[in-house]
């Protein structure tokens, strides 16, 4: 039994940082699962290097995983770290700036040899651990590599495989430090390496070594505990944004009794959507890796014509390419879902970074009058509902729906209270039926919601032609008639407006219904806005938070909601795009807060900005 004191903490942020090869993503994920089991609320954020495998030991090669967990509600992965795990010099250097004052640094001293220091560009190879650079921090040096090798000296594994275990040492140590047991990790390892007993044994051995290293080494005098958070009862899992989006869409397909077609061309950060769907073929999911984004879009509208729940996904440059074909999809009035996982732009931009700068393109990036519904998830788990919602709107209104996610949501993970399949409503879909009569079928004859029939090729008596030329009302025949054109343009706009009758009204997420300041957000800024508004309210400030999921059409009551506040702050990870749309729609001025750095808005910077506005 250990003699160390135990301190209870409300919330902790840990950053695991090391070389791409050091397995920090896995370490972080396993610690996260364990944390979740312990009942904390949490949020995570991985940041991968831009290159596939940047040279080992270099700054470009640093891979990180950030975890923020606590006994209170956790909204973001956190601005600054209480603890930094630095497996080598580069990892330390590239994260030093974000450690809290007096924060803890756990450094693998074996990662600070001459070579590593040189690669990390430490001038004349001065070791920051020794030269006082880290003054003011609590630094724990551990010779992780040596210790790992030491405890595996009997292992039949080769050196390379042995060294691979070193992340388990760190993990074990942290589990001890935060008063956890090792069970969940051991289960994982057993499931993964069951067939490789040597590897399994080695990993567990090192894990335990790390754990006991904490217990036994006198240097470490305190351990910590973060109590369970008051989360809603239920069964939880951790889920990532791209994954949640796929599950939402598969659920929609299942609930509408349709096959799901996914036509896509790989692109960061959307590729995982293709990978996830490709693994779910037993849900009648058909994936098609097209030759480019234009083919992806066109195959998707082809599949929609054919009667599938058709989905395509891409990122900014890909959506730009899809513009023309998306215009065709729009005029054809076929149901489909178009996912755009936004990344840093313009052009190729910052492929591995996050941004919200494709909103205007999603709204206006097509020739002619070509409005489409646009909706955006606000967090990784929210993407599940948004995926389902997009499909529902597409199918019930015979219209392509654009989903605007982003890299931060796509790769972020958070706990998710798992819904029961039976609790999720069915989606009514009825294909047009064969007719008795001989008079011509009218593919553009609309119902009271301006929705045309979905007539699937192969259905008797419904043969009809559609295309990209302006079409006559009802018959869908090509028409150059001036009045008809205006009527159809207005009708296509009205179709989008009509959707507002079938979506929830805009709600205030937090704070009073009216007052001085409303912070109005969309997409992945949800977490940070929640956290600052939460604090400001606690400090007795008059501030509220509204978050727009339905960007087109807006909820009917949005204007009303906005007019109840004196000042409206719109934080965006772009140069002010929602702001433009709000001004245009309501002639209401807004106060923009724009950060365009490829990274999320931090709690601190947004809070001080909003404080300045109150």
């Amino acid at each position, binding site marked *: 039994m250990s003699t160390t004191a135990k301190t209870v903490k409300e919330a902790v942020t840990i950053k695991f940082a090391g070389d791409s090869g050091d397995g920090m993503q896995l370490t972080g994920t396993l610690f996260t699962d364990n944390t979740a089991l312990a009942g904390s609320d949490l949020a995570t954020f991985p940041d991968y290097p831009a290159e596939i495998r940047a040279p080992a030991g270099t700054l470009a090669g640093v891979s990180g995983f950030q975890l923020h967990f606590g006994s209170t509600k956790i909204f973001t992965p956190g601005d600054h770290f209480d603890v930094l795990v630095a497996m080598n010099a580069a990892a330390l250097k590239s994260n030093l700036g974000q450690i809290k004052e007096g924060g803890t640094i756990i450094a693998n001293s074996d990662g600070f040899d001459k070579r590593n220091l040189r690669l990390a560009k430490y001038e004349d190879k001065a070791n920051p651990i020794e030269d006082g650079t880290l003054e003011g921090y609590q630094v724990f040096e551990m010779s992780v590599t040596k210790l790992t090798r030491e405890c595996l000296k009997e292992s039949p594994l080769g050196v390379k495989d042995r060294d691979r275990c070193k992340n388990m040492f760190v993990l074990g140590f942290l589990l001890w430090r935060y008063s956890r047991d090792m069970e969940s990790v051991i289960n*994982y390892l057993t499931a993964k390496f069951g067939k490789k007993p040597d590897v399994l044994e080695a990993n567990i051995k090192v894990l335990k070594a790390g754990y006991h290293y904490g217990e036994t080494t006198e240097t470490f005098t305190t351990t910590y505990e973060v109590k369970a958070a008051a989360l*809603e009862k239920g*069964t939880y899992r951790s889920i990532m944004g791209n994954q949640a989006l796929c599950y939402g869409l598969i659920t929609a397909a299942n609930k509408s009794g349709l096959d799901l077609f996914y036509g896509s061309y790989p692109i960061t950060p959307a590729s995982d959507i293709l990978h996830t769907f490709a693994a*779910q073929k*037993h849900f009648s*999911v058909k994936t098609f890796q097209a*030759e480019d984004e*234009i083919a992806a879009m066109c195959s998707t509208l*082809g599949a929609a014509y054919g009667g599938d729940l058709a989905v395509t996904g891409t990122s900014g440059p890909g959506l730009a390419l899809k513009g023309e074909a998306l215009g065709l999809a729009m005029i054809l009035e076929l149901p489909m879902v178009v996912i755009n996982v936004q990344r840093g732009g313009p052009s190729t931009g910052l492929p591995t970074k996050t941004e919200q700068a494709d909103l205007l393109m999603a709204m206006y990036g097509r020739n002619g009058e070509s409005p489409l519904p646009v909706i955006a998830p606000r967090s990784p788990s929210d993407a599940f509902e948004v995926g389902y919602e997009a499909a529902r709107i597409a199918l019930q209104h015979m219209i392509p729906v654009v989903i605007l996610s982003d890299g931060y949501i796509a790769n972020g993970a958070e706990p998710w209270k798992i819904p029961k399949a039976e609790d999720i409503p069915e989606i009514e879909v009825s294909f047009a039926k064969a007719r008795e009569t001989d008079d011509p079928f009218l593919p553009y004859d609309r119902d009271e919601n301006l929705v045309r029939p979905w007539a699937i090729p192969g259905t008797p008596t419904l043969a009809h*032609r559609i295309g990209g030329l302006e079409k006559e009302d009802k018959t869908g025949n090509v028409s150059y008639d001036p009045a008809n054109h205006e009527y159809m343009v207005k009708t296509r706009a009205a179709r989008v407006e009509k959707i507002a009758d079938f979506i929830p009204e805009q709600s205030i997420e937090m704070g009073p219904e009216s007052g001085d300041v409303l912070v109005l957000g969309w997409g992945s800024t949800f977490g940070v806005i929640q956290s600052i508004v939460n604090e400001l309210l606690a400090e007795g400030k008059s501030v509220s938070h509204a978050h727009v999921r339905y960007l087109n059409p807006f909820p009917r009551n949005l204007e009303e909601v906005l007019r109840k506040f004196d000042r409206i702050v719109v934080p965006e990870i772009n140069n002010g795009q929602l702001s433009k749309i709000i001004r245009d729609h309501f002639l209401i001025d807004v106060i923009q807060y724009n950060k365009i750095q490829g990274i999320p808005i931090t709690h601190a910077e947004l809070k001080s900005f909003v404080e300045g506005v109150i």
Partner: protein
Amino acid sequence: MSAISSNGKPSLKAKDYATDQDVRWCPGCGDYSILKQVQTVMAQLGLNKDEVAVISGIGCSSRFPYYMETYGMHSIHGRAPAVVSGLKVANPDLSIWMVTGDGDGLSIGGNHLLHILRRNFDVNILLFNNQIYGLTKGQYSPTSEQQKRTKSTPMGSLDYPVNPLAFALGANSTFVARSMDRDPKHLQEMLKRSHAHKGTAFLEIYQNCNIFNDGAFFPFTDKATKKVNGIFLEHGQPMLFGGENEYGIKLDGFKPVVVHMENDGYSADDLWVHDEGDIFKAQILTRFFDDPNNKDGQFYPRPFGILYQTERPCYEDLLVAQVQEAKDRKGDGDLDKLLTGNSTWEIA
């Protein structure tokens, strides 16, 4: 495809495949004949109108779907192959006929054509080659001969042309054929063979644009000259041509040689016997008018018919099988299982 139309009436006539829309091609356009042959062949094959989809891109040729009383889509320029791919995946039982032009299919649409050919979806592709951009009023196209003077090339075009059938072979097409608007019988025959082929059938159809490129194929359509300028390939038959088959083609190694049967004293046994299954000989056929080695401008007749055909699994069948295999292995997807995943925890 049943021989009985959906509404229980007996088999259809060609005109039953026509829509009520006025056909908007120029009087005299070769497209009229192609439309007629397609409708005729569909009637002969007894295709069910409701189980046929005609998909096109943009161009005069691509107006085709509007005139076919079947399902159809007039999509966007060059993208029909991609639309077809998605439709065929969603709806593998459809008989899909794709119509494109030399600009639609080989200029803006070349990449999609390449990829549908190699994937080998079971569709029939009809490429109307008039060696010009018709709809945009007469610019040269990728199949126009070099030095062609058009609105966009008043001093003559500079681009060395695309050889559609050589391109198709290079793209691993499983069916490569050529016909023309002015030979209804042959065109009908080729349309039937395309339909019979399981896989992507690529049929180039010489089509006269009498407004912007009139007479481009005159040598092959004109009564007086066609017999000696064209050769009609038949599998297993010696390569004979000319009004009374007075000419033949034999192979000296890799070099095709045109001989006069009588004057040069040859018999059919001396000739090259056409083999639809031989991709290398097919390559030679595609270059009868485009052989870089034919420096001395040796004359060869233009081959019509099926230059090459082979069998290969179709993409949609492989996909259907994979979905089935997944279900056999994992059972039909169970939502709760999917949503729950492998690692969960309880908040009590």
